[in-house]
């Protein structure tokens, strides 16, 4: 996974509340199995009408936001379905950081697994960032959002921060460091709940 350290980019504002993953990545595209081109389906039904024409005035295709790597969102962003395709579509579209009032929990976990920084900020701050003309500067090491000369701090769990900074992959980490502990756990659990280790479990 690509490490995340600093990011300087214009932001794509989309401040609707309770944007669920069905809106971010409509279910019918879940039938696609290739991960590569999922960026095309990012917010598909807000961008393309049923006849295949572009929907006017949508922020995703607004040239002012072209190339944005930061997205600004409202409350409960990414709630609903656990589909990781929503995050693959987001990264496929070019976004590496989302600043929202709050996130759906599984969506936030999926962001972390894909090197996307999910930052929580109060509504007033998100609204203020949304009207800035200048680019934002995210510094994960320092845990700050640089905005028009101002430096806004943000919180992140230390273990999440380290994982993003180093670009670590969970399986590698667990296999490398925890193999012995897992074996000990299994041996103990087998004593307490032997039925979980039956042949026909």
């Amino acid at each position, binding site marked *: 996974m690509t490490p995340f350290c600093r990011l300087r980019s214009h932001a794509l504002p989309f*401040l*609707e*509340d*309770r944007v*669920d993953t*069905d*809106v971010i990545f*409509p*279910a*019918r595209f*879940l*039938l*696609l*199995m290739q*991960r590569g081109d999922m960026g095309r389906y990012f917010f598909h*039904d807000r961008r393309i009408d*049923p006849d295949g024409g572009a929907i006017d005035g949508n922020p995703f295709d607004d040239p002012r936001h072209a190339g944005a790597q930061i997205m600004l969102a*409202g*409350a*409960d962003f990414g*709630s*609903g*379905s*656990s*589909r*990781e395709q929503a*995050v*693959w579509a987001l990264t496929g579209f070019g976004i590496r950081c989302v600043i929202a009032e*709050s996130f*759906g*929990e*599984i969506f936030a*976990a*999926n962001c972390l*697994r*894909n090197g996307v920084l999910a930052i929580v900020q109060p*509504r007033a701050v998100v609204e203020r960032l949304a009207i800035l003309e200048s680019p934002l500067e995210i510094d994960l090491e320092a845990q700050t959002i640089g905005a028009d000369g101002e430096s806004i701090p943000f919180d992140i*769990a*230390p*273990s999440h921060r380290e994982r993003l900074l180093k670009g670590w992959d*969970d*399986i590698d980490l*667990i*296999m490398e460091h*925890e193999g012995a*502990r*897992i074996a000990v*756990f*299994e041996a103990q*659990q087998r004593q*307490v*709940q*032997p*039925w*979980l280790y*039956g*042949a*026909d*479990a």
Partner: protein
Amino acid sequence: MSGRTLYRKLWDTHVVRDYGDGSALLYVDRHLLQETSTHQSFVGLREAGRVARRTETHLAVPDHGVPTTDRSAPIADGLAAAQVEALKVNARDFGIAHIDLDDARQGIVHVIGPERGFTLPGITLACGDSHTSTHGAFGALAFGIGASDCATVVATQCLVQQRAKTLEVRLEGRPGQWVGAKDYALALIGRHGTGFATGHAIEYRGRAVDAMTMAARMTLCNMSIEAGARVGMIAPDETTFAWLEGRPHAPRGKMWEHALDYWRTLPSDGDASYDRTIELDVEGLAPQVTWGTSPQDALSIEGRVPHPDDAPDRGEAERRRRALDYMGLAAGMALQDIVIDRAFIGSCTNGRIEDLRAAADVAQGRRVSSRVRAIVVPGSTGVKRQAEAEGLDRIFLDAGFEWRHSGCSMCVAMNADRLEAGERCASTSNRNFEGRQGRGGRTHLMSPAMAAAAAIAGHLVDVREMAS
């Protein structure tokens, strides 16, 4: 030391390593897989040359995109067929048990896990699907994950997880006839908002919960995710044990006795405390329906579509305006005046035999409105056969409902079962999001009895009046 909650006991007994910042490496006892969320997991595992650590802890079944009409012919939709096939190949290559489409054990993951006794009290269970919270009804710590995590579970049997805060939801009182778990879930979310349980593991308790059947408990835990919680659970009790005994994967004989002794230690201690508590008195609660595009847009069937300007803040007013526009409804109209085109009875929320019995009770001797197309989709092939043995299929067919094979169907509209743009549906599923049942489709969530009643009336209606 003060007592521990059910959640904390399950958490503590599954920590492989505590990272000290509220997160831990957690052991995952059981893993369910379906076709739409796991293909990329296996792509990654193959690329890295990894194998399954414990093959016997996984169970794979196709459910999301499968056809519910003809099962004798190959799947017509090439993409769905490829995905169903890929799941089979992935399971085979990694030595994981797989249930095929024509197998009598097939069904929606969250229906067959319990049905097989694969879901047990005291375990951790993960699945690449947000409604994994359903399994919490058995006193399991069950949660939805993404595709990357599915791969991690296969390779390591573990996940890095953040410990949640605890939220006690107390349900007290006795419900009236035709009011049950779906109404409780919608009422809770309607009153407290979809985010009310974010960051929390819910434990449902109280007299109304004690009195619930396992099917009802599953319905309630299922919709915890709509409240923002990844986990919803209920302590195992005699109802749980009676339901599980004799199921294919449940322990037997002496092992069953041994398991019972252990499971009886799981309920929250008397002096355990929760981070938050909310209460709902179900006495006098009316059947609930949704009017908008979020599960929190739930109101009593006696109510009216709200005015956006009455919203607590600007953002919510804006969201409601958008929802009204999408739903094609006018503020102030009576919910009972909402005319429907379709009805869907099924899904992991309400596709169990008890749900079909409730709907059949309403349908018996009545006719589906001539303007409505109504389908009944059992949650599993097992449920379908049970219903047929009880003659429920005849009741539905005679009333003008279509009787289908099991699968997610119109809950997620990944197969041929979907709404056309502008069509309006009374649905027993769990999400009324924009486009959830088909692009431009309009969803009203409600219980199976309420959906059957709406199918018959041709509009939303209070089942208590129809059935009395």
